[in-house]
């Protein structure tokens, strides 16, 4: 399977969950999009850059607090939800979803995806 095909398959796992509007693999260091499957209207490069920036700050906060590495973030907003799982490879697996999405199911798929890209 090609790299693009493999990443596409990984993102399929997430976007098939009802209420997910898009999923991305983001290079955690650079904030650049590695692969994406997003509905129209979602600004992929902006979400990637800002999520990676937030990820860096969260990582430092966790380290400062002596809590170790973060495994899952869930940011709830008025009109949707941002869910992120950092993979061991430094890639962030990101999902953008509706506010009423099944968080547990998306989290499970994000964790599976993070193992696949690790």
């Amino acid at each position, binding site marked *: 399977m090609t790299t693009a095909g493999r990443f596409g398959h990984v993102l399929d796992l997430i976007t098939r969950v009802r209420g997910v509007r898009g999923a991305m693999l*983001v*290079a955690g*260091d*650079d*904030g*650049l999009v590695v692969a994406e499957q997003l509905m129209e209207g979602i600004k992929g*490069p*902006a979400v*990637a*850059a*800002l999520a*990676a*920036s937030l990820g*860096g700050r969260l990582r430092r906060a966790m380290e400062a607090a002596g809590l170790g590495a973060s495994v899952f973030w869930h940011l709830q907003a008025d009109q949707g939800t941002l869910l992120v799982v950092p993979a061991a490879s430094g890639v962030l697996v990101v999902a953008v979803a509706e506010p009423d999405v099944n968080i547990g199911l998306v989290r499970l798929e994000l964790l599976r995806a993070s193992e696949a890209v690790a």
Partner: protein
Amino acid sequence: MTARAVETWTLQPLTDFVREASVRLVLLMTPAGQVLAQSGFSRAVDVMSAAALGAAIVASTGELAKQLRQAPFAALNHQGNRHGIFLSTFPIERGTVVVLAVYDLDVSSLGLVQLFYEQLAADLKAASPKGSVPKQVLAADFERELSESLNTLFGR
């Protein structure tokens, strides 16, 4: 961090870019190396060196693109262990603006710089004076113009 501008219309977009992209140093200049504004530099000699080197890179990569029969490169990014350098150009009504930005990898990222660079370019295009021709610097006036620009850029 203080931003200073020879061309005052560049100041607000530059200040916004520095704050949002969390960049350490920024130079706005022409492809000839004439500085329009700077942020983060503390010595005039550093501004002059960075402007000359940035302009040289733009010229050489532009020529390389010409040799490859393609449009000039949109942007150049060089990433070291601790810092990244981002260099890009965009057209405005008065000519071309070169942006040279240096960012700490701990604080910012290429993605953030690219994201807010697009905003910077849009803001500068909107803010640039319309219908005016930029003042040409003649060789005879070069030293005086350079000295005045550096005085403005460092608040002397």
